[in-house]
């Protein structure tokens, strides 16, 4: 069902048109003047306007001009009483305007509005896509936290300094790396590798390459990621997960800008910006000997802290609508979200950041109500990584408490979290249900 506005000073025509349109299942409104039309447009959102060109208080062009300034622009069809007028108006070449001539038959209305429906699927998504300004072609968000991130990206992109991206899991470190690469205007693509996913035996080969026969299974020579990223950007994700004994090799590349592939004696010059990423804090890196100090300073010439989603909750509606636009496009649907659901999403702390938000929206999209065409969120947003739970516990802890007291508190908090479900609580605590019952009985005694 479309919401249609008929603007015509011929009230009899407007009335019959309205009845015909209602019979074919549309919601119609009537305006007899430019002023009436503007009034309706200020209080209702229309999918389509059937518009007379000559109106008592102005021209249909005034209505077109007004409608084009609206957030959701309706499609417009001009209705003329004479075929000659139709051709004169058509000569005006007003973009995106259709024309029909009186008398208008049911088939004419249906033809015009079916174009409207099919166009709705493509043009609305196109318009929506245009609504999302993607910074550096990949980042979404207009919050102050993101604005300062954009400023840093812009500044560092002008240099070839190595960048270390820090931030919680799911904040979008790889996307920020891509943004820096995009802002650097390099011709070659970004090369990415995950240091945490490589086995100790393979990491040298992955980073620096190898010659044929360098080790068992090296049936051909292979370029390492440093060489692949020559004159471009190399993204080393989870760099802090690199075994500490492999780190001196990395330091050598960063200092000398040369690599020696495994099994080779030849030095290969490499020229690339290294963007590394970690979800560990600087304190953790420094105090737990996770990354050698010399490597840290080589990699983190320009450290960037990526904001957590809970620090930029204003961006949640923008992100949600962007995800929905992508999902709608992929599945040719028109699922939306209401304000109440957005409020709910904004009140949650998102320990898993944008990745968790996307996951929740994807699930809610799959569960969407086909009647209302709206997503269906779970009754309660919850993640085992939620900081709300951690806060409760850490606040409850005091130095000198007995282990038994802490354990008791932990069980209590866990049971509260799962609404008293002992099986689930035992599973979360990593103990058997029997052990949980034994503990609870002991506390009662």
């Amino acid at each position, binding site marked *: 069902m479309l919401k249609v506005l008929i603007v015509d000073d011929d009230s*009899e025509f407007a009335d*019959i048109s309205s009845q*015909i349109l209602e*019979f074919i299942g549309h919601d119609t409104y009537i305006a007899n003047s430019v002023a009436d039309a503007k009034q309706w447009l200020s209080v209702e959102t229309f999918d389509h306007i059937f518009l007379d060109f000559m109106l008592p208080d102005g021209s249909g062009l005034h209505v077109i001009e007004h409608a084009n300034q609206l957030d959701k622009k309706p499609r417009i069809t001009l209705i003329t*009483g*004479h075929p000659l007028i139709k051709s004169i108006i058509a000569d005006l070449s007003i973009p995106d305007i259709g024309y029909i001539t009186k*008398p208008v038959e049911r088939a004419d209305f249906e033809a015009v509005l079916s174009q409207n429906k099919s166009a709705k699927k493509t043009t609305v998504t196109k318009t929506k896509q245009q609504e999302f300004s993607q910074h550096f072609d990949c980042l979404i968000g207009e919050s102050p936290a993101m604005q300062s991130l954009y400023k840093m990206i812009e500044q560092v992109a002008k240099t070839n300094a190595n960048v270390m991206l820090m931030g919680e899991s799911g904040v979008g470190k790889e996307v920020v790396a891509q943004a820096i690469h995009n802002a650097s205007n390099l011709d070659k693509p970004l090369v990415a590798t995950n240091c945490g996913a490589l086995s100790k035996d393979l990491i040298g080969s992955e980073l620096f390459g190898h010659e044929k026969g360098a080790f068992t299974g090296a049936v051909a020579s292979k370029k390492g990621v440093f060489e692949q990223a020559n004159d471009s950007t190399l993204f080393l994700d989870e760099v802090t997960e690199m075994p500490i004994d492999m780190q001196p090799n990395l330091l050598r590349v960063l200092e000398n800008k040369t690599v020696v592939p495994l099994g080779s004696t030849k030095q290969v010059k490499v020229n690339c910006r290294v963007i590394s990423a970690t979800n560990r804090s600087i304190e953790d890196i420094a105090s737990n000997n996770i990354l050698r100090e010399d490597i840290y300073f080589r990699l983190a010439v320009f450290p960037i802290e990526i904001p957590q989603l809970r620090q930029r909750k204003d961006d949640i509606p923008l992100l949600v609508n962007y995800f929905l636009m992508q999902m709608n496009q992929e599945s040719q649907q028109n699922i939306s979200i209401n304000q109440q659901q957005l409020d709910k999403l904004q009140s949650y702390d998102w320990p898993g950041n944008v990745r968790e938000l996307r996951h929740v929206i994807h699930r809610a999209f799959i569960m969407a109500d086909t009647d209302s065409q709206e997503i269906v969120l779970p009754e309660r947003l919850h993640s085992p990584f939620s900081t709300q739970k951690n806060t409760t516990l850490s606040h409850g802890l005091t130095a000198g408490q007995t282990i038994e007291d802490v354990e008791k508190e932990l069980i209590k908090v866990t049971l509260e979290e799962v609404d008293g479900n002992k099986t689930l609580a035992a599973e979360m605590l990593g103990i058997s249900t029997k052990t949980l019952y034994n503990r609870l009985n002991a506390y009662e005694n």
Partner: protein
Amino acid sequence: MQQQQSITKLVHDARAPLNQISMQAELIKMMVEQNAPLDKIQQTAAKIIQNCQKCSEELSKISEQARK
């Protein structure tokens, strides 16, 4: 020239009730298809008759004008 302009205006005036007749007939077809109340159908049919009379009057005016 003036004669032609007058006739053009009269034709325009005759076209208006003719357009209404066409659309009202369309509406009656739809009403019948969807079992609309009989009185609504009768009201619409009455409007067709009114518009036919209007149209007839306008055509008479054209005829008079053409004789001048």
